C-alpha cells in the first residue's frame, strides 16, 4: 500500500470512530405511543420515569422529585445499622461524591429502608460521620410503603424486612443512575469498585448528553 495514504486513512478512521456516540441505554419499562402528525404516523417511545415522591432528608427538609429535576443522580437503598454491604457501598459512593462534589447537575439519593430507627437526626449523624455536608448527597427517610414501593417498582431494587438477615433487612446493593428526565440509565453493583468506576465514567457521558 502506498505509504503516503496511511496517514489520511488513519485520520479518517479516527474521526469516524469519534463520531460514534457512546449513548447510555434507557432501562425499565417502555411503551410505544403512536400519533399522527401532518398525515404521517409517528411512533414515540415513552420510557418509565421515577414518579413523584416526598421524603425528609437529614436536615429535616422535605425533599421531592422536584429537587432532582434537570439533574442526574445516583440512588441506593441502605440503613445506618447495616453490618453487611452498606459500609462497602458507601465507601464506594464516597468516591462518587468526591468526584462530583459541587457539581450542580449531580446529586446522590440514599434512601433508608429502616423507617423505624433511621430518623433524620440519625441520618444526619451518619452523614456527618461519613464526612458529608450540604445537600448534594441526600439521606432520605419515608414511610415503609413509599420507600419500598419506589425501590421495587421504580428503581427496580429489591428490599425487604427479614428477621434472619444481618441487621434485620435485606436489600440489593445496586446504584441506579437516573438522568435529567427521571429515566433509568444504568444499574451498578455498589459493592464492586470496578462497577462504581464504570458508573463514574457513565455519569460523565450522561452529563454531556443533550436532549433528543
Amino acid at each position: 500500500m502506498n505509504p503516503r495514504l496511511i496517514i489520511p486513512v488513519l485520520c479518517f478512521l479516527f474521526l469516524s470512530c469519534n463520531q460514534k456516540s457512546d449513548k447510555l441505554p434507557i432501562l425499565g419499562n417502555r411503551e410505544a405511543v403512536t400519533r399522527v402528525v401532518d398525515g404521517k404516523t409517528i411512533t414515540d417511545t415513552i420510557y418509565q420515569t421515577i414518579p413523584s415522591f416526598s421524603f425528609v432528608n437529614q436536615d429535616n427538609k422535605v425533599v421531592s422529585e422536584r429537587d432532582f429535576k434537570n439533574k442526574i443522580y445516583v440512588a441506593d437503598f441502605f440503613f445506618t445499622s447495616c453490618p453487611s454491604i452498606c459500609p462497602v457501598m458507601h465507601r464506594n459512593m464516597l468516591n462518587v461524591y468526591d468526584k462530583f462534589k459541587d457539581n450542580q447537575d449531580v446529586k446522590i439519593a440514599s434512601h433508608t429502608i429502616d423507617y423505624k430507627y433511621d430518623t433524620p437526626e440519625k441520618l444526619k449523624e451518619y452523614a456527618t460521620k461519613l464526612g458529608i455536608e450540604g445537600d448534594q448527597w441526600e439521606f432520605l427517610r419515608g414511610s415503609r410503603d413509599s420507600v419500598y414501593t419506589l425501590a421495587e417498582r421504580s428503581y427496580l431494587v429489591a428490599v425487604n424486612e427479614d428477621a434472619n438477615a444481618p441487621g434485620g433487612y435485606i436489600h440489593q446493593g445496586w446504584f441506579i443512575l437516573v438522568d435529567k428526565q427521571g429515566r433509568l440509565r444504568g444499574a451498578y453493583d455498589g459493592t464492586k469498585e470496578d462497577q462504581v468506576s464504570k458508573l463514574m465514567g457513565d455519569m460523565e457521558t450522561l452529563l454531556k448528553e443533550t436532549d433528543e
Partner: protein
Amino acid sequence: MNYARYYTNGKKLYDVHCQNCHGSDGQGLGKLIPPLTDTTFLKKHKSEIACWIKHGISDSMLVNNVLYASEMPGNANLPDIDIAAIITYVTNTFGNKQGLYDVSEASADLKKQCIIIK
C-alpha cells in the same frame, strides 16, 4: 512456620468477615468505623480483641483520637483458632507488628475477659 499459617489464614478470614467494614487497608470508614492502624490502641487492648471479634462491641472507644460510638456486630460462630488467626493478621498488618497470637491465647482471653452486654 506456625506464624505464617496463622497469618495467611487470618488474611483469608479477614477478607471474608472484616474487610467489608474495616477496609482492605484497615482504614475503616470515616468516623463511622474505626481503622485498625492505631498501633498503640491495639497493643493496649490486645487481650480484649478476641472478645470484640466474637461478641461485637456496643461501647464507644477512642481510636486515633477519634471517638467511635456505633455498634460492631459479633461473629459468634467463629472458632477460637479462626479468631486467633484474624488477630495475628490484624496485629501484624496495617502498620502493626506484634508477632504470633495463637489459639491458646485466644481461648484464655475469651474465657477471662468477655463482658457480654445483651
